[in-house]
Each structure stands twice: as structure tokens, then as C-alpha cells.
């Protein structure tokens, strides 16, 4: 697992200082703040301030001005600032330990590393950019700078490993509902938890678990959402989309992160208290893939055509093959045929 150093050096990370700078600018919107004052408040040189302002600009933050005249923000930056998120997540499990990085290998790798080092339940890792975003079976997640949400959430559920896979549906319905509220559109949920807008993938969830045979140590839920991408790489255009492409307008990533985490908090607690019934029901309500969908199933072994036939109580998808045989799909890609 890479990125040991990223997690270990966190308290001293430059990211924090840049965030302070951004918070200072955000606290004085439309007001010019002199470079000298910024340097004094953050406790660095003016030269350093100029360097960091340039870094913010590279991340898409619209900072006006220069060292001599001072700096100001033209409009509120859509950077996922822990201080702001913390306030908006009060009362949930996710407000207390939020770590934000400008550039990171993979939020899941860092969250797993933090979990290994004892980070508490509810820890959230956010990044503006991932250099090694991951998907299933070694696939790459396209992680464009500041246009997407790259977030990992650390959970320490009192569950057995056998019960844990349902968390992937919990995360799926929470993220799907957040997207629906945010866009006003009707996102689809492709089993187990791909987020689709207009039939194309706008978000994905990769969950990683560490467990003993009878006890889960921790689960890291990694959520990637394409939010404000104006366009996508050619090889993804046919299968992927962003909220902006699908709705024709930009969206606040901060709002969406808050909606997703609040939703996750609600569904997760409901799941732990009452079991899986409500989650399975909600999945059936919002996913066109649950029942009667013609799909192509690709497992590590084979690819075949089938029709979906509902979920088993443990969340596994049932499919009926062309020969009439119904069987569970434990893992694999399920695509509309």
C-alpha cells in the first residue's frame, strides 16, 4: 500500500498551509488582502505566499491580484475546505476528522493507511486531484483536478465480514440520492453501486475491507464522482459523463459532499440498527438494474447474457441465464445488454 509518507507527514503537510491561505481569502471575499498581511497571519514569507497563490490558481481557484497590490477571490472557491465541511456535517459521524489533500495518489490508499494506524470511525479523506485513482481489479479512475469528488470514508462497523458487502449498497443508495437532490435528475444505480446519469457513469464506489474471519476491523469506502468536467477523455466519452455534461450547469462539490455524507450517515445507521431490509427496498426502488433488466455479466471467468431477477437477502444480484437457470453474481461487471 503506497502513500505511507503522505499519511505519516500529514500534520506538517503543505496542504494545510495552503488551506489556511485559502480560508483567509475566503473569509474576506471581494476584499483585497495584502501579501504582507497574509504572510504575517500564516507565518510564512511573502515569497511563499506568492508561490502558494500560484498553486491555488493551478488548481482552478480564481485568485485575482499580485504580490504588490494584494490578492482577493473573485468568487467563493469550490475547494473542499475541512473547516467549512466540518460545520455542515455536525451531528453526523463524518465531521470530526476530515483530511484534505490537493494532490494525492489515491484517497483509498491514504485512508487505508490511516485506518491501519488507528484513525477513528468517520474519518474522511478528500483530494482535489488523484494521481493514482483506482477502480476495480486494478482499473484506473480518471481523477481530473478539482472537477471531481475524490473521497474516502473510513468505517469501523461492528459486523462480521459476511455482512460487510451490504455496505457497498448502503454507499450506493446514499450517493445516488445525493446526486438526485443535487441535480434534480433521476440517477440510476447499477448493481452494486455505479452512479449513472442518462445511462452513463458519473460516479463509482470502490470499497476495501480489512477483517478477521469473524470480525471486521475497518472498511474504506472510496467514492469518485465526475462533477464539473466540461468534457471527458475520448476513450471514456461513450461510457462516462459528469454532472455538468448531464445537466448543462456546474455544481458545488462542497454541497454534493455534504449531501453524500449526510445520506451515508443516515442509511448506514439505519442499516446497523434495523438490518438490510430498508437498504434492499431502496435499491429496488431506485435501480433499474434490480429486476427484469437485460444485462451482460462479465466475471473473471466468463461473460454471459442474462436477465436480472432481484437481490438476495445479502445484497447479491440474481440473474437468469438464457437457458433459464438463475444464479447469484458475487462479483463482476453487470452492464446493460
Amino acid at each position: 500500500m503506497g502513500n505511507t509518507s503522505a499519511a505519516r507527514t500529514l500534520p506538517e503537510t503543505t496542504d494545510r498551509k495552503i488551506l489556511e491561505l485559502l480560508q483567509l481569502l475566503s473569509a474576506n471575499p471581494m476584499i483585497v488582502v495584502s501579501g504582507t498581511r497574509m504572510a504575517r497571519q500564516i507565518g510564512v514569507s511573502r515569497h511563499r505566499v506568492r508561490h502558494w497563490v500560484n498553486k491555488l490558481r493551478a488548481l482552478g481557484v480564481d485568485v485575482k491580484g499580485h504580490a504588490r497590490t494584494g490578492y482577493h477571490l473573485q468568487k467563493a472557491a469550490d475547494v473542499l475546505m475541512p473547516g467549512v465541511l466540518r460545520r455542515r456535517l455536525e451531528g453526523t459521524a463524518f465531521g470530526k476528522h476530515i483530511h484534505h489533500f490537493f494532490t494525492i495518489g489515491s484517497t483509498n490508499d491514504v485512508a487505508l493507511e490511516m485506518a491501519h494506524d488507528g484513525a477513528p470511525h468517520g474519518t474522511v479523506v478528500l483530494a482535489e486531484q488523484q494521481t493514482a485513482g483506482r477502480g476495480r481489479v486494478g482499473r484506473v479512475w480518471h481523477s481530473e483536478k478539482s472537477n471531481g469528488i475524490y473521497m474516502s470514508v473510513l468505517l469501523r462497523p461492528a459486523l462480521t465480514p459476511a455482512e460487510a458487502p451490504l455496505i457497498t449498497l448502503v454507499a450506493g443508495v446514499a450517493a445516488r440520492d445525493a446526486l438526485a437532490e443535487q441535480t434534480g435528475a433521476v440517477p440510476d444505480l447499477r448493481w452494486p453501486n455505479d452512479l449513472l446519469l442518462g445511462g452513463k457513469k458519473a460516479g463509482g464506489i470502490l470499497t476495501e475491507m480489512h477483517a478477521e474471519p469473524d470480525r471486521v476491523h475497518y472498511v474504506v469506502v472510496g467514492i469518485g464522482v465526475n462533477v464539473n468536467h466540461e468534457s471527458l477523455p475520448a476513450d471514456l466519452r461513450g461510457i462516462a459523463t459528469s454532472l455538468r455534461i448531464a445537466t448543462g450547469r456546474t455544481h458545488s462539490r462542497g454541497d454534493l459532499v455534504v449531501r453524500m455524507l449526510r445520506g451515508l450517515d443516515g442509511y448506514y445507521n439505519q442499516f446497523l440498527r434495523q438490518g438490510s431490509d430498508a437498504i434492499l427496498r431502496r435499491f429496488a426502488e431506485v435501480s433499474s438494474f434490480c429486476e427484469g433488466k437485460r444485462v451482460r455479466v462479465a466475471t473473471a471467468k466468463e461473460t454471459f447474457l442474462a436477465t436480472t431477477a432481484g437481490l438476495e437477502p445479502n445484497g447479491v444480484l440474481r440473474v437468469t441465464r438464457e437457458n433459464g437457470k438463475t444464479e447469484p453474481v458475487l462479483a463482476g461487471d453487470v452492464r446493460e445488454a
Partner: protein
Amino acid sequence: MAKKKNDALGAAPRADLAEIERILAFMTERGLEEVEYQRGDFHVRLKRQSGPGIVHAVPVASQPAARPAPASNPGLEVEAVAVARPSATPAAAPAENLHTVKSPIVGTFYAAPAPDAPPFVKVGDSVKPGQVLCIVEAMKLMNEIEADHAGEIVGVLVESGQPVEYGQPLFALRPSGG
């Protein structure tokens, strides 16, 4: 670890046959299709075709060429390889206590992090506690299975991409350090 195929192996000695019988019984009991097993100088890979019919334990004499032995028996393919090892490890006791690493969930077994990547571990590797041995996936939940003992991998009991049951043995490990 330098492995050499020993052409002089000829027919497998009786003791080895008994061992193969034992492994086959284990495979049948667990419904395994392929097992790679190593103990001391004895190294064997057994492949069983699932489906009806009785599985015969007939080891095929090793071939001079490097290619695997032809499956003369439709039910079973046995590749018997004698391994020349430096005398670092004394011959293991006959009633050796191997440790098995079991799957904590029902899912799909992956020996490697990606289809084109090398496996996390292979037979003969020494592993440390906490080292990742494989991934078992259920519903896009990736469960990295770690070694709970230090030791040497002597058997990879499941083929990559195969479904595994709860509690199914995934690896046989010879604990090190007594």
C-alpha cells in the same frame, strides 16, 4: 529459490503417491479444481476437471521437456516435479502441521491486484504476518487477505477468478520460527 526439474524422477515413489492421494481427497472434499503443493523436495500440481465421474490419482511421469505432462487421463492432470533445494531446510516431518489461510467471505478469489499483474505470492515465497496474499471480492467490496502467520507458502489452493466459499482454505502455509 532455484528449482530444477529432475528427469531422473521417473515414476513417483510410493510415499509420494500416498501424499498425492491425500491431497486429492482434500481437493474432492473441498471441491477444488487445482492445487499446488510443496513439502521439502516434493512439489506437485494437481488439476482436476470438475463434473461427473471419478477422479483417478494417476501421476504422470515427468517429461524431459519443460512442458507439462499430457493429460493422458481425462479426469486428472498431475505434474510431478522434484525440486533440488539447498539443504537450508531439513526434510519436513511426515505429519507436518500446515496452517491454512481461509476466506472470511463468500466471493471471488484474485491472486493478483490486476489481471495482468504478477500474483501477490506464489509457492515457495516466505511471507510475514500482515502481508497481502490475495483479494476476495464480493459486491465490489475488496477484501485483502493477509498472512496471519509468518511462514512459507506451500500451496495456492484456488485459481484466480474462481468463486470461494466462506471458510474455504485459500493457502497452505508452513509456519516458520517454530
